[in-house]
């Protein structure tokens, strides 16, 4: 169970890092009124954020029932 929990934590860490990277890119494009900012926003910022969110949701959806309570015996 501990190993499983470490795996879940690891995935959530990766998801968090992906989302954070995507959000930083999005933040950078917000105040840059240039045609390239739209491309950067969609192809890098939104893509990284969406990948992180999907990984997080996948982690939630595939965790075993024993993990629902979050207790480690």
């Amino acid at each position, binding site marked *: 169970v501990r190993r499983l*929990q470490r795996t*879940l*934590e690891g995935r*959530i*860490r990766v*998801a*968090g*890092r992906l*989302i*954070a990277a*995507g*959000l*930083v890119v*999005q*933040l950078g*494009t*917000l*105040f840059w*009124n*240039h*045609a*390239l*900012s*739209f*491309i950067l*926003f*969609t192809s890098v*910022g*939104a893509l990284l*954020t*969406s990948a*992180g*969110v999907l990984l*997080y*949701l996948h982690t939630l959806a595939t965790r075993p029932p024993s993990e629902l309570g*979050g*207790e*480690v015996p």
Partner: protein
Amino acid sequence: MALTLALLILLDLTLIAFILARPAHLATAAGRVLAFVALFLLPGVAVSRGLSLHLHESKTTSFCLSCHVMAPYGRSLRVDNADSLPASHFQNRRIHRDEACYTCHTSYAMFGDLRAKLGGLRHLYVNYLGTIPDEIELYRPYNNRECLHCHAGARSFEESELHLDEREALASNETSCLECHDVAHDLAAAQRTDTLWKEPGS
């Protein structure tokens, strides 16, 4: 709106940093709720609002003129020539100055917005990865519908005898508005940058 979104992103980044620094909190109910907010709700809001903001920004004149190749067309909005359609519309506030290009170069038919966005992506591709043509032309002849979207029903248009005579032909595109109003972008005058009109107070 950009500032609000920036603050929301900063808040989310703080929450994510907390989760990454203290992963043990994920074992608690509060930690799981926090993770759901930081890793699902707030990023979802950030992406959807960000996309909406960028789509809005893509309608602005400064966005279109951010590509170097469009600079002469931007200057042509300010030429001192009353016969130039873009200049007279821009300078006399017949269109929103912030959305000058988009107002006239978007189809007012169904999916016109979508078509304009796809066209914009194509322009970006050509500008950065393709070959920019020596002479920039419209994809298809300018449709009178875009002019009539505003001018149909306007007194100056309706009471003009010339327009009355050509009413049917104009509506059906048999006669183009540009046959008489034939100075679209006055690029020659736009080269003389010292004579360009400036907004009062600018």
